């Protein structure tokens, strides 16, 4: 089964695309809601539970990754590219874990109720301090923009490899099964 080893496992691909969709949606909702008067409430009410879902998914995904065998890097990647890819993956995991935690933490520090649905709400994870809230609120914006930049770099690298180097990089993570890579 040497061909199979070239593609990420089914569960890894499923989690990858589920998170890609939710995270991009979250970035869009985030920047749109803070500039909107009319849609602010509707959007922030989606933003909180969807952000917590991402936090849960990233933990599942990370554990899943630890217990999975990863396909080797394609031969077309130089050692420098490999190390860049490796560290950018670490950065993406870290951002996807820290960003929702900061969202939860900042609302905790301000003692907002952290409402998910109806009467379901989360407990606070930080002590009450509005100064802490203000710092985390800034960090939440900064990390979101960093996350967007990391996504652009990731997306650009995949496009470059798939379309220019033509090493079928995309097929490794394709949502469907690719037999011969």
């Amino acid at each position, binding site marked *: 089964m040497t061909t199979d080893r070239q593609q990420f496992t089914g569960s890894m691909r499923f989690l990858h695309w589920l998170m890609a969709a939710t995270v991009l949606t979250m970035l869009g909702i985030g920047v749109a809601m803070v500039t909107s008067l009319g849609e602010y409430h509707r959007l922030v009410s989606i933003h909180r539970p969807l952000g917590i879902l991402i936090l849960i998914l990233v933990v599942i995904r990370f554990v899943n990754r630890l217990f999975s065998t*990863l396909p080797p*890097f394609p031969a077309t990647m130089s050692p420098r590219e490999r190390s860049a890819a490796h560290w950018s993956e670490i950065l993406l995991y870290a951002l996807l874990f820290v960003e929702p935690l900061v969202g939860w933490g900042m609302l905790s520090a*301000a003692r*907002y109720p952290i409402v998910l649905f109806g009467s379901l709400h989360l407990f606070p994870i930080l002590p009450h301090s509005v*100064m802490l809230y*203000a710092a985390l609120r800034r960090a939440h914006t900064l990390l979101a923009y960093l996350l967007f930049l990391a996504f652009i770099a990731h997306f650009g690298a995949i*496009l470059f490899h798939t379309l*220019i180097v033509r090493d079928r990089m995309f097929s490794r993570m394709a949502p469907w099964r690719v037999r011969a890579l």
Partner: protein
Amino acid sequence: MESKSRQLPSDSTASTKKQTALLAGRSRMVRLAGIGVVILAVIGAFLYLGGWFSPHKLTPVRFVDEFERVNGRYSGFRRNHAKGVCVRGFFDSNGRGTRLSKAVVFRIGRVPVIGRFSLGGGDPHASDELSAVRGLGLQFSLSDGEQWRTAMINLPAFPFKDPQAFYDNVVASEPDRNTHQPDPAKMAAFLANNPETVRALEIIKSHAPSSGFDNSTFYGLNAFRFVDAQGTWTPVRWTLVPVQPYEAVGATGASQDKNFLFDALIASILQHPLQWHLILTLGQLGDPTNDATVPWPEGREQVDVGSLTLDSVESEETSPARDINFDPLVLPAGISPSDDPLLSARSAIYSQSFTRRAGETKEPSAITPSDVRK
């Protein structure tokens, strides 16, 4: 972290074979350009969503900037209703609200409340004026950990139908550089553009303010949806009606003292607990829920759902209420926003005001801890 398998490939042969696929020449340029376009389009979409291409759209940031430009910027204070004093007490629910809303707060029982009385305006050291808008922000802490926050004022109608009208009014009321007075022509133009404000101001004028905070009626003004256990909802506006008897201004005589309204409030709360009844007014089909400038017709069913008691008072400097954002959309399950455009706008703008003041050093309040101990 790096899994072993990723280091495995002994790929010298594979590498030469795959490298031949690398595009060159013209088609390489075309594809590179295509990639560039796609990346720019994604970045453009992100910036578009973030409002980067709509520099004139009214946003929470621009609204609060305008408050600061016209009123000044006071470190650590609210950008509106800046002057205030904090209170505590409880709400005794009589259970009559449960037929309209499943919210836990309406079950029979007592719920702790923390609040803040305030005067409208962005200057935290302004002298008290009888004509200034009186505000009351409240936070009910429900037994299941939910919260209900509300910010009410003593006006029977709100002068602005939407955030744009409020914004235009702030712009029009900016004092002229030379005369230090608002330009009457600008205000007249604003009123001509906003006939609903003129109508609301007439209603407001017909309700003379009472002598103090303690005998003021506080109006929620915005409509909400009260949702019962079956999921059916009723349009509701709420009001706090004082148990303290109405006293007209002048009966006690307006003092010239800078803090006379707050001082009187402190004195009366230190003497005896203050009480209000929470009255729900039920809207009927056709009553506007999206326009706080229009009161509902007389004779709508009213339900007294319980009484609010405020029995202690504190300076902002020592009370946690200073650091609360009385966001009108912090609601328990069983109360939902209506289609009133003010509600989401208030939530967004209060959040922006709160975020700014949260990160600033907190200057002393006009009402100090020693004022409250007198």
